[in-house]
């Protein structure tokens, strides 16, 4: 958990924070979306073959190149794919065109679209969304829209769902070192749905809450995969005067609040930086960023960081870059311990593939990094002919990469002059983020020419609607209104007992708290003990509640029976019989009570009556592991205690 000092709602409002989320959730199908490979993930590193590829940007349908695409092209990376014999075929390696879409996946996506209140699409087109980072060997993800314009309730507010998409999952990154990025191709092609909300959320915790509600309710449908990596969220954040920034691939719900908070502040600090640059007259047209090769000075700088790097990669050069009038700006803090220079460093890392730690050193007069002495910095400044009002960055590496780095420094400062660049960012575990890519636009979308569009008939929709039962998205909000804790609702969604919960509370009139205790807490506790509660059907459990309602089982007895069913793997009828057989009669309870009283006599004498009662009651019930009817024990105990009082 990341500790964050959140602002007040009013303060976020003053910032003009708005945020939307995209939830990517793998759905439960046996096979992949566009080929007949099984859905499978390998934990081992025992891949069977490798393929090496590169990506080039292509023109969009509207005749334009996408900005992200050009950026990825600049990085000139070798992309290595690790293939597995059992779950990667020639489709994933982009050596065969796609097969017709997996209609089981379409069915699930339609169900979820309907649950989210979306207008389902009449004729679905497969679209290619360009991704040149290598995560998909084709260079694009096959994706489609199944529904638009839905909504869910969240704490009384309507959150709009922009669209529900169905798409193929990408590869998993193994490593990204210099000009070589490696991916495992096993996950590639797994069907995913993407739930996109409008930017209706206005505080970090609201974003987190909505993300939690949607992903938990998705689990509640029983139509999706669970487990690590099966759900990933993208979070869009903007504040007044900034542009949209997208934080990609967050796989921990609890990180969303901190991420949104820090991103809102990062944008605020970038806008302050923009104002300061303007005040100093730093403008795009007159921006002075210049560089000199100082490789000759490398020894003289006496920097272990630079010397080690040069030794590690012979032929490397060192450049000093001057930034006119930017004294004090590089150290300007944007996120906790991450100044503006960090943004520059990350961009150089991603685009110029200079991934040393650190990959730049800077000195802006106020802040500086690295191990250069005052004299060494003075030499660098003089070599650049830079003054005290300027800032200086050092970068080193192979010539082509360093030249790209120099041009990226300029581009990043130009972005800072405009304010907040449109980009996607990667989340760190501390809630801060780093540059990942320039945010792609609609130009990267173009129709897939390999597959025909397909119509969803009114009849098919009707069939799906008829089959569908309760709605977990609505139920989530309704449960909250009933006063059930968020924790318990999450549990009921995760173990999918929310439907049963409604059946026993509404149908049998079971007490809400008892139902929560049993279906959320006790089941979870059993699971943690290693008893697999998922093997019990809702009907099995319903009968236990029914017996309880009939007075044949106590609260404790219900728990005992469920445990017994799990341990003995047989029907609840037998379990109930065993329970009733083992239940002790009144006489035996009296004996137990007096034995216990005798053992604790001295202790009880010193306690007030109510505390003594609680203590003994707890001991008795605990000792009998559910086989005692609490009311009978309480009666016997009260009688025994009052008898002592009278004697005393």
């Amino acid at each position, binding site marked *: 958990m990341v500790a964050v000092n959140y602002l007040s709602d009013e303060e976020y409002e003053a910032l003009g924070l708005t945020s939307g989320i995209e939830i990517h959730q793998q759905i439960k199908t046996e096979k992949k979306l566009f080929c007949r490979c099984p859905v499978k993930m390998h934990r081992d590193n025992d*891949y*069977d*073959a*490798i*393929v*090496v*590829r*590169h*990506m*080039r*940007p*292509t*023109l969009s*349908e*509207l*005749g334009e*190149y996408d900005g992200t*695409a050009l950026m990825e092209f600049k990085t000139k990376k070798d992309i*290595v794919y690790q*293939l597995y*014999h059992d779950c990667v075929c*020639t489709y994933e*390696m*982009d*050596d*065969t*065109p796609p097969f017709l879409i997996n209609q089981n996946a379409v069915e699930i996506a339609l169900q979820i679209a309907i649950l989210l209140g979306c*207008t*389902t*699409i*009449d*004729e*679905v*087109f497969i*679209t290619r*969304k*360009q991704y*040149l980072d290598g995560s998909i060997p*084709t*260079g*694009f993800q096959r*994706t*489609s*829209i199944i529904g*638009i*314009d839905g909504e869910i309730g969240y704490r009384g507010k309507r959150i709009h769902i*922009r*669209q529900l*998409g169905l798409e193929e999952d990408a590869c998993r990154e193994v490593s990204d070192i210099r000009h070589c990025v490696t991916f495992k191709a096993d996950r590639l092609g797994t069907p995913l749905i993407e739930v996109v909300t409008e930017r209706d959320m206005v505080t970090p915790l609201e974003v987190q809450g909505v993300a939690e509600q949607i992903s938990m309710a998705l689990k509640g449908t029983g139509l999706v995969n669970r487990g690590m990596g099966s759900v990933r969220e993208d979070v869009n954040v903007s504040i007044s005067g900034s542009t949209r920034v997208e934080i990609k691939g967050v796989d921990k719900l609890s990180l969303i609040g901190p991420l949104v908070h820090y991103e809102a502040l990062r944008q605020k600090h970038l806008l302050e930086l923009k104002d300061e640059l303007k005040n100093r007259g730093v403008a795009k047209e007159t921006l002075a960023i210049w560089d000199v090769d100082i490789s000759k000075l490398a020894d003289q700088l006496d920097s272990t960081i630079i010397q080690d790097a040069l030794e590690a990669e012979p032929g490397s050069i060192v450049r000093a870059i001057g930034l006119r009038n930017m004294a004090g700006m590089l150290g300007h803090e944007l996120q906790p311990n991450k100044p503006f220079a960090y943004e520059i460093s990350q961009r150089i890392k991603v685009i110029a593939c200079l991934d040393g730690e650190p990959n730049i050193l800077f000195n802006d007069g106020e802040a500086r990094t690295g191990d250069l002495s005052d004299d060494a910095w003075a030499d660098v400044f003089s070599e650049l002919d830079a003054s005290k009002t300027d800032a200086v960055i050092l970068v080193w590496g192979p010539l082509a990469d360093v030249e790209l780095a120099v041009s990226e420094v300029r581009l990043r400062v130009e972005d800072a002059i405009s304010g907040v660049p449109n980009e996607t960012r990667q989340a760190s575990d501390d809630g801060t983020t780093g540059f990942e890519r320039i945010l792609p*636009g*609609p*130009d*990267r*979308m*173009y*129709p897939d*020419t390999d597959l*025909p*569009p397909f*119509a969803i008939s009114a009849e098919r929709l009707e069939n799906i609607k008829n089959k569908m039962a309760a709605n977990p998205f609505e139920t989530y909000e309704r449960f909250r209104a009933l006063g059930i804790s968020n924790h318990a609702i999450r549990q009921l969604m995760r173990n999918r007992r929310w439907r049963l919960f409604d059946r026993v509370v509404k149908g049998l009139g079971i007490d809400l708290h008892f139902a929560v205790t049993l279906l959320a807490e006790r089941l979870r506790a059993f699971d943690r003990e290693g008893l697999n509660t998922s093997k019990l059907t809702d009907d099995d459990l319903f009968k236990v509640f029914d017996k309880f309602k009939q007075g044949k089982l106590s609260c404790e007895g219900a728990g005992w029976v469920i445990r017994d069913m799990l341990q003995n793997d047989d029907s609840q009828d037998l379990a109930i019989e065993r329970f009733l057989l083992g239940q002790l009669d009144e006489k035996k309870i009296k004996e137990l009570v007096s034995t216990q009283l005798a053992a604790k006599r001295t202790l009880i004498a010193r306690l007030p009556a109510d505390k003594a009662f609680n203590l003994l009651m707890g001991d008795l019930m605990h000792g009998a592991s559910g086989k005692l009817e609490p009311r009978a024990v309480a009666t016997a105990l009260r009688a025994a205690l009052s008898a002592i009082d009278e004697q005393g």
Partner: protein
Amino acid sequence: MAASSSSNTLKGYRGRAKEVLSSLGARVWADVEVKTSKGNYVGLILPRSETADDQHMVLKLRTGYNVGVNVNTITEISEMGYKEAHYEIPEKKFPCDPAKPNVTLLGTGGTIASRLDYRTGAVIPAFSPGELYGAVPELADICNLDTKKLFGIFSEDMSPLQWTTLAKGIGREIEKGVDGIVIGHGTDTMHHTSAILSFMVQNPPVPIILVGSQRSSDRPSSDAALNLINATRSAAYGDIAEVLVCMFGPTSDQYCLLHRGTRVRKMHSSYRSTFRTLSDTPVGRVSPTDYVVLRDDVKRRRNDRKVKIDPVFEEKVSIVYYYPNMKPDIIEALVDNGYKGIVIAGTGLGHVNKPLYEPIKKACDKGVHIFMTVQTLWGYVQMFVYETGRELMQRGIVPAANMLPEVAYMKLCWVLGHTLEREKVIEMMLKPVCDEITEREPHDGYLIFQGGLPEVQKMLRHIAK
């Protein structure tokens, strides 16, 4: 604009869809708000593919996604703007450097560089030097490029007219003094074209390189750019002055192989590394940083401008892919229809069933030239081994050694364009022009590794496929 909907304003729409859209005053490229009985949409109306149904309207949503809206549910369409798309590849002037070799790219209609047709989803080739430079700027580092679009057809539509035009075009370029020729070609019949050009264009002084792509260049992972770069390098600097096919060696983006035009065949419907040299080994390997001649028996580049262009072609030739239970009427039908030559792709060493003996004999007696090749693709026709073979030869079939069936077909068309005289035909067919028949098959001319074997698996973990 309403009901004036000419075919253009509702491009691709027909039937019910066209009726509804024109009654609602809709037109393609209009930015619209659409109200339907199910829900509302905002987006750009796109033209529709003519092969798609007449029940839906295609809308490009603001997010860039396309969706189809059932026209029967539409109640209202209001136009808010208009944005017609223009599909242009950024055209930049191809730089000229007198120090660089001159290469001519002849276009036949392949999709070497291309843009996408929004409507049919088809790929429109980019072809002018300016367009190519826009798409593959690396070409300017290699040579001065001139392009000539000879025709624009799919490779399955290639016919004698195109082959002879191509051969003559090559002759003119050689005469003009170019340093190399690249031919952009669809991959499906690239080996047919490379074979016929090997016969029609003999002893060229410069490389003639056929190139295409297995993944069209509207895809970021396309093999087109690398193929084109490698083909252009082979044409500009390569030392092999033959008709060659330049396509991916492995499926990884590593290098291309140069295959002799008469020994190459497309062997996989979709793999990048689909072209293989059969019963022999490739003549070269080329990458953006490397050019290696793999064999000693290649014809080297010359400075003269001598070349023999021999563009003749007899169209009445067929290829018969034998199958068990083939009936005599298959052969008879060809003879009755005036076919002058037949190439049979026989089983095993070159066999067909007995019922065909008689019609084959009759055909040969009538002056039809029948040659035997093998449908195993690798290996020689060996008609002395079994009685069937001997009996077939006795009836007039001539074994065509290790000529690939498609190559034998192309060669027979070409030979029959010269002569119909039996002795002469046989002499020309069996005298290799360009390794279409080789005297020996090297041990490594047939290499198909089987997956699943431990030693092969081991190799695949370390060598990029």
